[in-house]
């Protein structure tokens, strides 16, 4: 029999090839073992180009690579970053920043105000031309601050001119980029397809030296960092496909920090104690039940009933939502009951509304009756056009949203309102809710989704304004009073007055209810204390250590397993100094941790095409062996 022999040879060759393949990707680096901090999340990194940041993990990498002009302190307060101090002119339209002398980029080049000027000018140029930079998340920080011009009179001084008088410039999450590298890149490419491959050059505490898309990112200590040096030599941020595996890895010690631990696992970790600390941070996110408040008819689309446009209708429904029950059942209590569009994280700004709606089905029913939505003979709630009200409910796929939806279906059902609930996904739902201003038909009644905030409440207040319909507004709500208040607080110079205006906006929002804010889910993280110590929360009282704002918390970490402290840095770091003018904590010697081996492996691009071809060929070979024998089989089978 010829074939079996051939088959056997093929199998042997193939397996030999595969064993070789196992060894192929092996790098041969040998080195003294660096101390590695391993963190994990379930978000996929978008890339290394800072203009393409979208997710929290992207922002985290950006803030490790680069400094922002002003840093974020322990309570998200402005502290020295790229700039060591700043002053504001009396009219609030001119900011003068003092850039720290002697700063170096991680490639050794000097870092001066010219770099900051270049970066900000790059943004201004794009904004002037009406272009967006990359994913569009960063330049709004400068436009919200009203930046109009920037100049660098000397290497240590930066002057920024604004047309608004607000403190938002100090919170702008824009990375200061090395002009000597970025100015050489075509401006159109820089924010779009420029990969910013490793090794990244920045002034932050750690820079990316290895990146495997969809898998992990490895950062290495910046030997020239101006601030305190953390104990870890490297940081590895891994992407996990599901959070269960991530928690497993934390438990076995393969991971030091896990972001977004599921609520069910959280309790178990917390009670187990030991080397794992489970921390519940205050939320900067709200999840809402949104209504289609678009007040003009849309041919072939729009809401299924005019009822959802009626604030009285929405208000009545609010009495049929047991928010505490959702918090208990869906989050095991690890969330706060929702109220306004200002999150608990934005602590100073959050104002609880007066007359919070209790959960009372009977009251909901009577309010519906009073508002002109009676029940018919078969127990269905009718709208003002005498049609039974049937509402569509959708959500982008988060399981907690699905569970909340189940509860809402049941509660509204008791009111005689049928709710058709279906899971969707971000892309589909995002498309579905587009209003005519964005080329869509707004075919929805209700959905559950979330918003994530900044330290300042402006961004979340904005999504409910009329101007944002067609852009970020998804409730399509339009209220002239709300718009007026928004514009007022944006230009407000008096802090107390601004607080009052923001408070009024929250009350108005709560009464009109374009959204019912369901819950603020706590940030559940967990980390090990047997590898690293020195963990600090941000905000100090009720935050989590990592994945917040800025990267100073990485620099406070100590090696829990070594008696000897980490290299360098004794001086207290920047964060304890108030904004005005700290004299800077300076790292004692910029001596790098010299015994570092060069990071093993390189990034993806170099050998990809032949590798791809080889991989494809291997697949083909395996398939051939099988199919070759099919033909044999088919021929003999047909003979029988």
């Amino acid at each position, binding site marked *: *029999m*010829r*074939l*079996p022999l051939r088959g056997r040879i093929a*199998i042997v060759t*193939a397996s030999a090839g*595969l064993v070789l*393949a*196992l*060894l*192929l*990707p*092996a*790098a*041969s*680096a*040998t080195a003294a073992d660096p101390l*590695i901090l391993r963190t994990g999340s379930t978000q*996929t990194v*978008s*890339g290394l*180009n800072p203009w*393409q940041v979208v997710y929290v993990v992207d922002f985290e990498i950006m803030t490790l690579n680069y400094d922002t002009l002003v840093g974020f302190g322990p309570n998200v307060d402005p502290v020295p970053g790229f700039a060591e101090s700043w002053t504001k002119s009396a009219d609030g339209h001119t900011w003068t920043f003092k850039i720290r002398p002697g700063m170096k980029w991680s490639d050794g080049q000097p870092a001066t105000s010219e770099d900051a000027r270049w970066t900000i000018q790059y943004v201004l140029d794009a904004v002037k031309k009406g272009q967006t930079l*990359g*994913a*569009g*998340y960063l330049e*709004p920080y400068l436009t919200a601050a009203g930046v109009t011009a920037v100049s660098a009179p000397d290497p240590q001084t930066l002057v920024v001119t604004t047309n608004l008088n607000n403190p938002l410039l100090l919170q702008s999450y824009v990375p200061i980029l090395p002009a000597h590298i970025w100015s050489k890149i075509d401006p159109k490419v820089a924010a*779009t*397809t420029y*990969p*910013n491959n490793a090794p990244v050059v920045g002034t932050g505490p750690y820079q990316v030296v290895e990146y*495997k*898309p*969809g898998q992990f990112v490895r950062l290495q200590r910046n030997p020239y960092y101006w601030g305190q040096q953390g104990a870890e030599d490297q940081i590895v941020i*891994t992407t996990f496909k599901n959070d269960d*595996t991530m928690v497993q890895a934390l438990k*076995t010690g*393969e991971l030091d920090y896990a972001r977004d631990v599921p609520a069910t696992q959280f309790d178990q970790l917390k009670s187990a104690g030991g080397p794992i600390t489970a921390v519940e941070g205050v939320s900067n996110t709200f999840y809402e039940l949104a209504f289609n408040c678009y007040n003009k008819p849309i041919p072939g689309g729009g809401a299924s009933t005019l009822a959802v446009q009626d604030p009285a209708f929405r208000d009545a429904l609010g009495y049929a939502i047991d928010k505490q029950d959702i918090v208990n059942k869906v989050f095991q209590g690890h969330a706060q009951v929702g109220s306004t569009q200002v999150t608990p994280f934005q602590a100073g700004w959050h104002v609880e509304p007066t007359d919070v709606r209790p959960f009372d089905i009977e009251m909901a029913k009577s309010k519906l009756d009073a508002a002109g939505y009676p029940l018919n003979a078969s127990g269905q709630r009718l709208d003002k056009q005498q049609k039974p009200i049937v509402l569509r409910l959708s959500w982008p796929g988060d399981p907690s949203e699905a569970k909340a939806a189940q509860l809402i279906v049941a509660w509204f059902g008791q009111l005689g309102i049928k709710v058709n609930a279906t899971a969707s996904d971000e*892309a*589909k739902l*995002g498309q579905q809710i587009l209003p005519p201003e964005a080329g869509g038909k707004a075919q929805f009644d209700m959905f559950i989704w979330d918003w994530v905030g900044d330290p300042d409440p402006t*961004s*979340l207040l*904005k999504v409910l304004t009329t101007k944002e319909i067609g*852009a*970020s507004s998804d409730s399509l709500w339009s209220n002239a009073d709300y718009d007026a208040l928004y514009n007022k607080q944006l230009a407000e110079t008096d802090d107390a007055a601004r607080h009052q205006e923001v408070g009024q906006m929250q009350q108005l929002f709560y009464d009109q209810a374009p959204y019912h804010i369901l819950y603020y889910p706590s940030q559940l993280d967990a980390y090990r204390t047997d590898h690293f110590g020195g963990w600090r929360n941000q905000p100090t009282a009720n935050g989590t250590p990592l994945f917040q704002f800025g990267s100073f918390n990485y620099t406070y970490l100590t090696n829990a397993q070594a008696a000897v402290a980490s290299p360098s840095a004794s001086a207290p770091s920047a964060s304890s100094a108030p904004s005005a003018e700290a004299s800077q904590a300076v790292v004692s010697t910029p001596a790098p941790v010299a015994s570092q081996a060069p990071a093993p492996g390189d990034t*993806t691009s170099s*050998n*990809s095409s032949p590798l*791809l071809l080889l*991989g494809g060929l*291997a*697949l083909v070979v395996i*398939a*051939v062996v*099988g199919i070759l024998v*099919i033909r*044999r089989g088919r021929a*003999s089978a047909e003979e029988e």
Partner: protein
Amino acid sequence: MSGRYLLAKIGQAIITIGLLIVLNFVLFRMMPGSPDRVLGRNPNVTAEAIQATRERWGLDKPVIPDQLVAYVASIAQGDLGYSFVYRGASVADVLADRIWPTVILFGLGELIAIVVGVSLGAYTGWRRGGPIDHIGNGASLILYATPYFLIGMVLLLVFAVGLGWFPTYGMTTVGEVYSSPVNQLADYLSHLALPLATVALGLIGQYSIVMRSSIVDTLGEEYITTAKAKGIQDVSVLRQHALPNAMLPMATLIAINLGYVIAGAITVEVVFNWPGLGTLTVDALAARDYPVLQGIFLLLSVSVVFANLIADVMYQFLDPRVKA
């Protein structure tokens, strides 16, 4: 004769690939939802920003014919496009990165499954009715009926979480710096063990069952009886006469199986966080990363078409009985 046959087959393969490319494009564009809507929830995004994104990705042009033509043209030039999710990375790079882990996992899995499955099936078929047959066949049936991911979850629970013998995720211990290639190999192997076991077990279930029934069929054939009558030893009969012929229907299964194997690939990789094409597919789907999805789809289907073609051609030389 064979030259013309060869040309005809190549022609068919090219047409099939052409159809595949068009189908590839149309299919993914039919998916509802647009990638520019997956940009997370950005309260700062402006209408202009979204429009600019759409323009940059060519999404504002009509799907047919503009986008389709552009797609086919770029494929012809060997350009698979750029990923929407991994900004700036070319699809070829993204795929190249992920193809090896899948090939290793499934190649080795298939190999082990073929060897073990065939042996197990042959032996239980040979010793039909005996206790070994019952146990072996029963175990195979249960494995066959169990979805791959369930096997994976059980193994994970017992061996990684419960006993702690194996790591729980990934292909390597991320961030590790190895002191020697042997250490690195050991690390790879310890990560490979459970996913490989999952794949192998799943396939063994199928292969041993088919092999067994195939052997049972073959054993009834006349030439086996003849061989036995001639006095040839039992084992020789098995190895030289029964086995080769019994292999054939089983071999049919291997190829038809490719479809199910891919389903298994995706779920097993998800369970173990194995960085291969499977996890890439699931992620790309959620993010509507059309270029990457199209790349994967194309890669998989073209491989099968090529394999068919090569097999057809080689078959010409191997078996003179087969005519076009």
